[in-house]
């Protein structure tokens, strides 16, 4: 037991180091030429009176007001999508479950789109309503996918994933319809849907933080229960677990996490399936470890993806969703190949 704990701590330390390294790279990379040395020098100069800081006010503002919130937001979004993906996989005991395949992200996207398109007519502060609408949409999306998958009869991977695909296509069709109805808002909604952190600031971080913390905390606390769930429903019930209640709570928390990520960063696919899988390969099958490891690795991963997005075709930017799709789609096929004989 002791050595297992030690191994866990070693994994955490490694993942934390990865996140810190990614964050440093994220802060250093960008169009404006700001080197880590200059940042360090500026910090020192702030403390030492009379010393000339290497960065001027404009560069410092770029760093503090544009780049730092972007890195923080990227880490939050990556963490949320990854931990939600891991939690969905635990709840549905399905290695292919992720916020995108289950309709959670599609539902969140539709909810947010509706508020952006018509919100001004319905609410005083439409922007604040985006996460709420996204959460409602996410829950409805997952519920629809789950119920549809179950009504298909078999409770295997295929029916759930197919139901999720059907629900997602339907939701994206409704989204397109809404966009066509509000052609004036089209460009704004479209840019948002592609996914990106470019317009994010500290106010976005603050807006999402409460939802993100609540959803993540619930999921992490439920890690042990997910491990019991993994034993199979009969065993879990015999051990005194209320499986329905656990499922509802975890699905709610994962949907909240997905919705808050979608609300600030748009639709960024594949993170929720790729990261938990890599983590599972590394640390084994215990959710008490998989969930927090997914959180740390997902945060670092998305910060790195964002570095790619803003440097590959600089000074223009790639939408984040495009980068994750490029990386994630081939990976998804690999997972599909290696899991089909086990899971179905």
């Amino acid at each position, binding site marked *: 037991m002791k050595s297992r704990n030690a191994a866990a701590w070693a994994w955490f330390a490694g993942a934390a180091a990865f996140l810190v390294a990614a964050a440093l790279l994220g802060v250093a990379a*960008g*169009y*404006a*030429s700001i080197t880590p040395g200059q940042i360090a020098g500026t910090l020192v100069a702030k403390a030492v009176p009379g010393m000339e800081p290497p960065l001027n*006010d*404009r*560069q410092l*503002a*770029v760093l503090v*007001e*544009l*780049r730092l919130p972007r890195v923080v937001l990227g880490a939050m979004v990556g963490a949320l999508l990854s931990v939600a993906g891991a939690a969905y996989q635990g709840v549905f005991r399905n290695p292919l479950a992720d916020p*995108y395949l289950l309709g959670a992200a599609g539902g969140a996207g539709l909810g947010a789109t509706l508020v952006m398109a018509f919100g001004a007519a319905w609410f005083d502060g439409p922007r604040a309503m985006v996460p709420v609408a996204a959460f409602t949409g996410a829950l409805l999306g997952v519920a629809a996918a789950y119920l549809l998958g179950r009504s298909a009869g078999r409770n295997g991977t295929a029916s759930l994933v197919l139901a999720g*695909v059907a629900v*997602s*296509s339907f939701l*994206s069709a409704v989204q397109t319809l809404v966009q066509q109805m509000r052609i004036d808002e089209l*460009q*704004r909604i479209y*840019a948002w*849907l*592609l996914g990106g952190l*470019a*317009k994010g*600031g500290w106010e976005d971080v603050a807006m999402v933080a409460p939802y993100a913390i609540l959803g993540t905390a619930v999921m992490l606390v439920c890690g042990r229960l997910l491990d019991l769930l993994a034993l199979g429903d009969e065993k879990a019930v015999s051990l005194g677990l209320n499986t329905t209640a656990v499922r509802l709570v975890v699905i709610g928390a994962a949907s909240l996490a997905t919705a808050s990520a979608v609300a600030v960063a748009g*639709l960024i*696919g594949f993170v929720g399936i790729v990261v938990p899988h890599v983590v599972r390969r590394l640390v084994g099958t215990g959710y008490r470890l998989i969930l927090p490891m997914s959180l740390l690795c997902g945060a670092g991963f998305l910060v790195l993806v964002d570095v790619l997005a*803003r440097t590959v*075709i*600089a*000074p*223009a*930017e*790639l*939408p984040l*969703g*495009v980068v994750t*799709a490029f990386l994630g*789609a081939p990976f998804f096929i690999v997972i599909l190949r290696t899991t089909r004989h086990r899971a179905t």
Partner: protein
Amino acid sequence: MRIARLAPAALLPAVLVLTGCGGGGQPAEDKADGGGAFPVTVTDARGDVTLDARPERIVSLSPTSTEMLFAIGAGDQVAAADEYSNYPEEAPTTELSGFTPNVEAIAEEDPDLVILARDAEASADQLEKIDVPVLVLDAAQTFDDTYAQMRLLGEATGNAEEADAAAGEVEADMEEIVAETEEKLGDESPTVYHEVDEGMYSATSDTFIGQVYSELGLTNIADRAEGAAESGGYPQLSPEFVVEEDPDLIFVAYPGGDAVSELEKRDAFDTVTAVKEGNVVQFDEDIASRWGPRIVDLVQSVSDAALAAQGS
């Protein structure tokens, strides 16, 4: 499904080359009293913007603004312009995008004023966060909007007098061309079809370009199209409609070496008066899509074509 939705992103202009900073000159102190005292407050598309000092490093992210700035004598204050700012020749064109501005790349130019088109409004907040004053200008709907924007830029850049004179000159030139054209056309009102793209989208009199035609006394067939009112000024016409309306003049507003001959080759278009008489005119796309000082050239070319078609 997701891939299909993301596909258009592949069309993003692949801007690969990083440019060095466009180096501007030192502040021209002696020019500071060329009109207007600072601080000055002007009203842009979003509200009031106060500028504390005369801007000396302007980044213009719209070709129209760039043309206006040079026309009002603020050209030497422009430090960088976006990728499509190709006029006048001395404009400091860079790789900067005016559609999806990269705020860090703009900040590298160390600007003291950034001018954005309305479409890029979202970047304004971010620029203001790093203390860069921003002016957001709407697309002009009328000629008066053009004059007003020139004067606004004049006040904001400390060139109020010169801008006022330049705007007045454009206005006078326009009036002169309109009066002359009206006189020569007399009671006649040739019909005109303006083609925005190969998909046969047109422009009604509610649009900026449409106003050019109506001011000159031409009859725009797009105004009569079904659904023109709901189209936001840009209805899609059918070939049948155009042939039936039989316009005397056709203006092609998109580039392409054989755009005119392609149009003339369309089925049944050989029966259209404009095609029969050789009155299909292709605009310089830049002039036709910008609402800056070169609207005089635009109006002049329309007037010339109208008078040529009429035979006077």
